[in-house]
């Protein structure tokens, strides 16, 4: 299946600083259509489009909006998650750089649909250089009279991966540490300042104006049975042409990595960033869908010269640093995991360490409070399955247990 531009339709086409160029490319057609419908009709349209979240979890977007719209209270919030901290992911950056207007249009539609008078765009601190462009897009949209129903505020993060997790993000907007909250309650019933809140990824929102303008049937005609639309993938690592590629859902990883990005001598690919799953070369035909591998669409390619354990250790190092420390399995687990992987690379690991590693992975996946700790063992579990011999060969039988 080919590349197709739905989300990135305007990227590289319009002038991201000039609303007129956006409008002459069909800008605000989706918002105008939405405003002619009732909020519940808009939500029904999104539900029927079968759009699912692009931020990693794949939750049905229309359903989330429906929960928030039906939750009690007059004060509701829309949050756009532009924290993009997953290693190897930069698609939201490209969108913010090249088509901020579509994102503002989307936030305006979402706010109308759930009845929010205030919306936030949570922008990671590392993307501060994009703020001016984004604020400019908000100001120009406001001047055109498209934001009379909602006030859109950019809120900047301060450097913390876990703040991309929606409940930690909410804590951060409230001005606190980004510790994730236990759930339930989920944000659509109790989110920002205890009020019904929807949190959606940048890319998810980008689909909204397109769906409103072109219709749910059109969107349903793209992709596979349970993964509709396209996915924007960020490809990096051992490839000749790193960058973002928008593919129809169900396209093969091989097409992306080898044909488009020009990878050679591939050993393995990690899909979904540091928390993603590992695809060994023999499975490179795997289709990209929610049911197989996807996450937020960060695609890291490793060639034959790379050491699997070394790469997994880099992931472990990342999680050890980024764990918020609130729950025990993640706080302690990420530390122990890194220690064992260090022993393996240093040649001081005993056979029992492999068993520890397996047990630890299972415990963390099952008992961590949020997705950070739950997904941290993914690359360990997968590589222990596909590259068992590399682990075995690192065990030092002289080390006493």
């Amino acid at each position, binding site marked *: 299946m080919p590349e197709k531009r739905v989300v990135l339709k305007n990227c590289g086409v319009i002038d991201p600083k000039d609303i007129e160029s956006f409008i002459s490319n069909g800008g605000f057609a989706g918002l105008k259509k939405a405003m002619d419908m009732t909020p519940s009709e808009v939500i029904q349209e999104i539900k029927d489009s079968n759009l699912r979240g692009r931020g990693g979890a794949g939750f049905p977007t229309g359903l989330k909006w429906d929960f928030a719209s039906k939750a009690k209270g007059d004060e509701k919030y829309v949050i756009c998650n532009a924290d993009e901290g997953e290693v190897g992911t930069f698609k939201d950056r490209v969108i913010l750089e090249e088509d901020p207007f579509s994102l503002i249009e989307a936030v305006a539609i979402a706010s109308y649909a759930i009845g929010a008078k205030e919306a936030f765009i949570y922008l990671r601190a590392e993307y501060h250089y994009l703020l001016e462009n984004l604020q400019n897009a908000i100001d120009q949209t406001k001047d055109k009279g498209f934001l009379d129903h909602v006030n859109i505020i950019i809120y900047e993060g301060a450097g913390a991966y876990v703040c991309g997790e929606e409940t930690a993000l909410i804590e951060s907007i409230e001005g606190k540490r980004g510790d994730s909250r236990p759930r339930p309650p989920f944000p659509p019933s109790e989110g920002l300042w205890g009020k019904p809140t929807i949190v959606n990824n940048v890319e998810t929102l980008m689909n909204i104006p397109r769906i409103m303008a072109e219709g749910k049937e059109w969107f349903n005609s793209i992709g596979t049975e349970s993964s509709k639309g396209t996915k924007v993938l960020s490809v990096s690592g051992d490839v000749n042409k790193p960058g973002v590629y928008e593919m129809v859902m169900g396209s093969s990883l091989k097409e992306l990595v080898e044909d488009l990005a020009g990878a050679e001598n591939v050993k393995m690919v990690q899909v979904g960033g540091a928390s993603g799953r590992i695809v060994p070369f023999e499975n490179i035909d795997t289709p990209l869908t929610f049911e197989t591998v996807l996450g937020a669409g960060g695609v890291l390619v490793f060639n034959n010269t790379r050491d699997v354990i070394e790469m997994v250790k*880099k992931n472990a190092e990342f999680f050890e640093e980024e764990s918020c420390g609130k729950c025990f399995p993640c706080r302690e687990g990420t530390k122990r995991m890194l220690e064992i992987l260090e022993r393996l690379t240093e040649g001081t690991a005993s056979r029992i360490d492999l068993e520890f590693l397996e047990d630890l992975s299972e415990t963390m996946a099952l008992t961590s409070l949020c997705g950070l700790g739950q997904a941290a063992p993914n690359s360990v579990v997968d590589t222990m399955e596909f590259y068992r011999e590399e682990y075995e060969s690192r065990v030092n039988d002289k080390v006493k247990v």
Partner: protein
Amino acid sequence: MEKVVEEVLNRHNNNTSILSVLKDVQEKCRYLPEEAISQVAEGLGVSINEVYEVATFYSFLSTGLLGENVIRICKSTPCFLKSCDVIVETVEKELGIGIGQTTEDNKFSLQLTNCIGACDKAPAMMINDKIYGNLTSEKVIEILKEYK
């Protein structure tokens, strides 16, 4: 310093967001000294502990003195695959400091960071708010000259 913090607090009146206040104080003072933290706590009517919790959680906030220019070199996997360690070595040598240190003239602080979303231009780094990608040792030396 006291004046600066007072000004920030005044601008944020009715706002109890510790993070927003600290971000502004840091922008003005370059870091968050102990006195500023106590003053913020008093101004917002929260404990010093609560303010410290926030100040030490976020990597862009700093309770230690930072140089005029903060260099953050990305060390996450995509940049690691493109030999970011060479970039680190070059900067260390050029500035005569190690990771986590600040030059004697307070001009530069050097830090490592996780992915900054520029992996298509790996290896990458930030100086203050600016991103530099596709780095080589020669390029880094040129870039540093602009800040010296």
